[in-house]
């Protein structure tokens, strides 16, 4: 799949890359990070113009992200019917309103696997769109210029960069899952202690 897409990006350039990152922003699992790093390398080799490629990619991916936010916003009736008003939902909503900007920013480039759930959750929890848009743009700029820039820097050796960064994203995701689970266990233990003290 990614090899076919790389060939097509060589042939059709920035417009195709824009379409692919847009589709990626909507949640279709495409190797977008690899494509962005490769596009940086192609820019160095003179295959793609870096400024138009970067601009088209940022605009496309932000539109894709905004659309998936709006899906969460407008099509969340079932979720809201089931959970809205429950203590857990209120807690989740409050914590997302408080820390959601971090999830939005870092899921754009560091843990891209959770970008779609974060977009949907942002819409469902009514996270302010202006703030979503701001952190989305900031994160995508880091993604395109940071990752694409590394591809540009390493040129034809971009695959080494891709191998490292894609695995690093997986490692961070593993640590996040582990961290949240352990935090939950600690919370439960604190509850037990508190109950014992109260008793």
């Amino acid at each position, binding site marked *: 799949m990614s*090899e076919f897409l790389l060939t097509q990006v*060589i042939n059709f350039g920035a417009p195709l890359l824009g379409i692919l990152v847009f589709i990626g922003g909507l949640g279709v699992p495409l190797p977008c990070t690899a494509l962005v790093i490769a596009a940086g390398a192609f820019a160095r*080799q003179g295959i793609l113009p870096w400024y138009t490629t970067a601009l088209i990619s940022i605009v496309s991916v932000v539109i894709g992200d905004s659309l998936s936010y709006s899906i969460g916003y407008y099509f969340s009736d079932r979720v809201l019917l089931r959970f809205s008003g429950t203590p857990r939902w209120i807690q989740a909503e409050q914590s997302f309103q408080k820390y959601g900007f971090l999830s939005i920013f870092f899921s754009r480039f560091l843990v891209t696997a959770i970008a779609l759930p974060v977009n949907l959750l942002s819409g469902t929890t009514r996270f302010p769109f202006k703030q979503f848009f701001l952190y989305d743009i900031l994160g995508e700029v880091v993604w395109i210029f940071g990752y694409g820039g590394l591809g540009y820097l390493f*040129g034809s050796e971009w695959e080494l960069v891709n191998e490292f960064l894609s695995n690093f994203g*997986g*490692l961070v*995701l593993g640590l996040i899952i582990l961290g949240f689970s352990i935090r939950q266990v600690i919370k439960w233990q604190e509850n037990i202690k508190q109950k014992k003290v109260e008793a």
Partner: protein
Amino acid sequence: MSAQTGPGQRTLVIGFIIVGILFTAFFGMRVFHAFRKFDGHRPPPPGKVETDVELIRDWMTIPFISRMYQIPPEVFFEALNISPQKEHEKSLEDLNDEYFPGQNGYVLKLVKDTILVHQPRTPDSAPTAVSPLTAPAP
């Protein structure tokens, strides 16, 4: 764990801990290996013409390789005995499948050998013992 937490929730969290450990271990190993491969590689200086043919991949097209190694595309098409007019957008793999079915990796090898023969020698490039190759008529 407290009485408030149901067995389902406990199982879920234990499942997440296991998934987290597996993810961390798996990707941690891969990051370590990738870092070891990456370590020691410095960005090439700007304007450097690529000489390492081991960087050629099956998904690349002839015009792309031509630009990367600064060799005219006609040289490759001539070596492959393929008309340059219609096959600019095909990858090496597609060219191989279409013109040399049954000879896996033939186009890739021929392209590498063509580069080694035609690329101007630089003082730091390794000497090669490759004779000019031409593909049999497809």
